[in-house]
């Protein structure tokens, strides 16, 4: 899968040196990257540091991005490679030996506490339940976009409605979800 239409917008603008586009891309993908890196490192601090390093690298290397994969896939690979490099450094630090084999055994650290999730786990279910309560047209347009990655053109064709309607339904869903999240104190206003 190559870069999608949404990504292309950012890629072309960033390649042209548009810093606002770069910032928008960071805002868009930061939650997803953070989530992946927190899952990977089990440390919010480490994930934040890696996230920052990743986007710096993205800015530096964007010209080498050929669009063979989705933009986030490329960003994710950069982030994971940085995480692996970190691991490699720590490995060399922590692998001093050890006469005894038992001392060579490294257990996985405790699973990360729920507080560090981007959206608390108990709130995730509430949000997903709320999405189910959206009216059918709004929910379908939103799901086709977010869960299936369909373009507005494709959604318009599937739902047999104008693109403008798709656009407003998807926005409406996002707006209602944000209102719900604010009301439930999941995010600040």
């Amino acid at each position, binding site marked *: 899968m190559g870069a*999608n*239409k*949404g*990504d*292309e*917008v*950012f890629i072309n*603008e960033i390649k042209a040196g*548009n810093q*606002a*586009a770069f*910032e*928008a891309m960071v*805002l*868009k*993908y*930061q*939650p*997803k990257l953070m*989530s992946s890196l927190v*899952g*990977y*490192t*089990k440390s919010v601090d480490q994930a934040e540091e890696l996230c920052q390093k990743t986007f710096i690298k993205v800015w530096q290397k964007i010209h080498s991005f050929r669009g063979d994969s989705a933009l986030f896939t490329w960003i994710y690979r950069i982030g994971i490679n940085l995480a*692996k490099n970190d*691991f*490699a450094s720590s*490995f*060399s630090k922590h*692998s001093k*030996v*050890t006469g005894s*084999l038992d001392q*060579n*055994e*490294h*257990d*996985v*650290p405790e*699973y990360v506490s729920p507080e560090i999730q*981007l*959206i608390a786990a108990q709130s*995730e279910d509430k*949000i*997903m339940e709320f*999405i189910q309560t959206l009216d059918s047209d709004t929910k379908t347009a939103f*799901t086709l976009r*977010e*869960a299936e990655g369909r*373009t*507005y053109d494709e959604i318009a064709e599937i739902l047999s409605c104008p693109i403008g309607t798709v*656009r*407003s339904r*998807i*926005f409406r869903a*996002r*707006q209602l979800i*944000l209102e719900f*999240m604010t009301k439930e104190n999941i*995010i600040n206003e």
Partner: protein
Amino acid sequence: MNKDLEQLSALYDGELSREEIHEGLKKMNEDPRMKETFHKFGLISELVQRKTQKKSSTVLFLKDHLSKVNPIISNLFTAAASVLITLIILYQFDDDRFQVNRESSLQLSSAISSEEAKSQLLNADQNIMEHMIHIMQSSDSHTSQKISKNWIPVGFSVSPNNPNQYSNGRNNLFFHLENKQLGIKKVEYFRANNNWIYLIPLQDGRLLTAYGDIPPSVADPMIQSIYKRK
């Protein structure tokens, strides 16, 4: 304001013309609240996509299912990412015995004092880590290749709920089989909390991965049996 936010939503989806993009980016640049909203769209996307992937992922579905059956083994999945960054080769085994090979471990230990050897070791680990990613995060079916009945440890039988899961009532075990061996010449195994991952290179060039809450004492006869029957 709603019109601006609707445009922001379309900008987020990359569904604007070039002129509209510039206009949208300019508005975002001038209004921190719009930046914040754009970021919140990202939070929603992350959540919905992750939750949707979970539903369609066999592995993650198993995690949910297993947490009810066996909370210990479910940790294997929740700790999967940890495995990737913290697993260290513990032991290697000779083909004909499945016991701790102290000598090879000590060789490993001394090898990592050499920069070149350390680099080689880390590269090898990277391949293994990729394999772990594949196993833990792939939503592909693990049944694409048939698991030989001869590989199933004595006392284990297939779960009625899941053809990939084997259980002896106390411990659970999953198999994953594929055509690459990652340069692994001998059985290697890894520990993550109370779960274990065994990488077993087969003579026909495939790699059998067994994972579950089975300690080496239980896996030992299984691996010996696999090698006897090869």
